[in-house]
């Protein structure tokens, strides 16, 4: 579904991605984990066309997409979920959701868009309760849900998720990932999720890549990685006690 081959991206003058390669198969949930500043978000922004790669290939759904504009990619079915704070804060929940269907509104009938809206409300009942409220007045968790709920409105083939757990309480994180897994299962959506919360990400992903300073330093299935002592020490906080002693 998605394949990156030695992609290099500069963020200003800084080489943020130093040639990363990864692939995501259809229907898979793949996680990209790693510490702050590893280039996780840069990787997502490069895939979604917000940043243009300096070199390397990005193939989505069989066609070369490196350097394509974001609106073209959304048309192709590759949608990056906005962070909660990138919603239109002054706009109502309903307005934000309808913006999710922006690219297809010209082609699709209103009734289809409306039935999609009902599906989103079924997935996120809280959004229906808050539909007239402006997005800025929602709690952090609700904003993340709105951002996530907006994505199915575009009928994506593949979702790119940028730190869905950021700033959320542990219980809400759990719920978020449950919904993401559900999206993947029910709608058949392929998911690439970037996450600092390694534990939560590995619990839902099938495979994962570990990114450090712009390079993929490790990859494997989620269960392999969560057993890896290096990962356990650095990200999962296991064995920390022995180390100190």
């Amino acid at each position: 579904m998605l394949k990156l081959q030695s992609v290099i991206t500069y963020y200003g003058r800084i080489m943020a991605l130093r040639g990363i390669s990864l692939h995501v198969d259809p229907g898979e949930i793949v996680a990209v984990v790693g510490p702050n500043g590893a280039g996780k978000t840069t990787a997502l922004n490069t895939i979604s066309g917000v940043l243009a790669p300096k070199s390397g290939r990005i193939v989505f759904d069989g066609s070369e997409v490196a350097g394509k504009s974001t609106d073209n990619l959304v048309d192709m079915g590759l949608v990056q979920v906005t962070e909660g704070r990138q919603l239109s804060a002054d706009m109502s929940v309903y307005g934000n959701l309808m913006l999710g269907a922006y690219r297809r509104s010209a082609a699709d009938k209103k009734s289809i868009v409306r039935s999609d809206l009902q599906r989103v409300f079924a997935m996120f009942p809280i959004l229906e309760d808050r539909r007239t409220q402006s997005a800025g007045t929602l709690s952090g968790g609700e904003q993340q849900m709105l951002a996530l709920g907006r994505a199915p409105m575009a009928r994506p083939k593949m979702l790119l998720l940028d730190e869905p757990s950021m700033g959320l309480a542990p219980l809400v994180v759990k719920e978020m990932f449950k919904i993401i897994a559900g999206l993947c299962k029910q709608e058949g959506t392929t998911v690439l999720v970037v996450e600092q919360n390694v534990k939560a990400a590995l619990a839902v992903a099938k495979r994962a890549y570990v990114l450090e300073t712009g390079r993929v330093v490790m990859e494997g299935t989620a269960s392999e990685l969560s057993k890896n002592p290096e990962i356990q020490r650095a990200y999962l906080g296991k064995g920390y006690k022995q180390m100190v002693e």
Partner: protein
Amino acid sequence: MEQFSQLLVSGIANGCIYAIVAIGFSIIYAGTQVINFAQGEFVMVGAMVAAVLLAKVSLLIAFPVAILAGCLVGAVVGLCVLIPLKRASVVSLVILTVGASLLIRGLAQLFWGEEGRMVPYFTGVTANEDNIFHFAGAVIGVQQIWVVAITIALVIATHCFFKYTLTGRAMRACALNPTGARLVGINVHRMIILSFIMAAGLGAVAGVTVSAGLYARCTMGAALGLKGFCAAVLGGLGNYSGGIAAGVLLGVVESLIVLIIPSMSDYSDAAAFVILLVVLLLKPDGILARKKAVA
């Protein structure tokens, strides 16, 4: 009393024009953070095109063509701002619009000359008794009713556009958060061009409306643009309702100032700027600014 209501009426009519121009400033500012000093020239282009056409065709043709001409000029200015948008600072873009405004005015003078061109009233001939209403001692011309009616229609249309249409929502989303807007697939550049086209279209409407019964001149843009700018800043840039309120208020104050200081009649233009200075000193975010939460 009679003088008061008369001045009030003409003040409201003038203020409506300022309000329309102010909306134009706010639309572009919201999308780009750029104060578009070519806004006044959009007004002039609308007025001049209408004036030239009205010599040959009826208002029903001249008015829409004038709006289209304004939109076209707006699109060109929008492109000029858009191309260097990412590399240039906002200040250089503002200066670019000043340059564009001088260029537009210069070209207009080249094509249409210096002399004013008569624009007839929308309806009725001259100050015929049939075209005048008496209200509270004031004489209200049909044209003044047109001005107010057109302004109200435009304000409602703009409001509905931003609130209820998908394109309007998309434009708001771009203004609120360009990255977020891009991610749902909104072409931000296209929205910026659209904001220039809308602002220019509104400006052209204001231009045709304000010059009916008067003369349209190539130099009329600067003064109207500055008044509209004052109104937009007074209302809080990017705040549409604030700009509209401030525009009408500005027109009224400008008109009534003669009652208080009769010698001001020649300097009523200065009133706008005095008000602007005072308000900016006291409430820098505009008269309708909501209190911002302290983080």
